[in-house]
């Protein structure tokens, strides 16, 4: 069979949205977002090593609305990628691969991401005002 005649899987928009596929693409999206966050981390470290002026620049950016929004997105992405990454590592051992477990695990990951992000920000904000 010529490669052009081979059957292709249907386009993505034909499928109904479901938890498992949404979480799958979210894992990739948060991974890409965290890549940007990792660059931010290095910027922070390099600025801290460079001295007060450079550090002030990072502080100003992170303290701005855009900076805080990015930090919040970065925190949520990190906790999601962390929790779902553990879910992936469990799958790698050959466990919890049946349909029911993938859904249970998926909801656990969503709940854990929400709780951890909330706890981190409540802790951070309470520290700011203390």
């Amino acid at each position, binding site marked *: 069979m010529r490669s052009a005649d081979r059957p292709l899987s249907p386009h993505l928009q034909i499928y109904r949205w479901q938890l498992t596929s949404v979480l799958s693409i979210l894992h*990739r999206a948060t*991974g890409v977002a965290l890549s940007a966050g990792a660059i931010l981390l290095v910027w922070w*470290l390099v600025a*801290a090593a460079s*001295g007060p002026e450079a550090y002030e620049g990072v502080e100003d950016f992170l303290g701005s609305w855009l900076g805080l929004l990015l930090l919040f997105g970065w*925190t949520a992405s990190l906790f999601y990628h*962390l929790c779902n990454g553990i879910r992936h590592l469990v799958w790698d051992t050959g466990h919890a691969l049946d349909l029911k477990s993938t859904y249970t695990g998926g909801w656990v990951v969503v709940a854990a991401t929400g709780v951890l992000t909330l706890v981190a920000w409540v802790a951070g904000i309470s*520290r700011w005002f203390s």
Partner: protein
Amino acid sequence: MRSPLGRAIGLGSAKEGVEHWWAQRVTAIALVPLSIWFVISVIGFVGADLETVQDWVSRPLPAILLVLLLIASFYHMSLGLQVVIEDYVHTELVKLGLVIVVRLFCFAVAVAGIFAVLSMALGTTS
């Protein structure tokens, strides 16, 4: 479908073995404790001044853990971004170019981060 020889050699159309997959899992496992430690530490720095951050980074344990965090993150990041590129970019030359650029970029930024940590830890900060 595959010949016994093809199966024994174990290299499919990807032309590689399990090294990529394996490295991604090992760095993932390393990043579980490292990233949790980092987030908890950073929350402690909300509102802190530069001297506090520099003092912290220059202590041995945080310095070592930060370097490990940087190595594991950027290795994991370069492996992950490579897969994303390989999945979505279908022009061979562009794909190859992007994978190389990402690899070099990750390496360079990781080195910058490690250098920053070491310069604070070893007291060469201006």
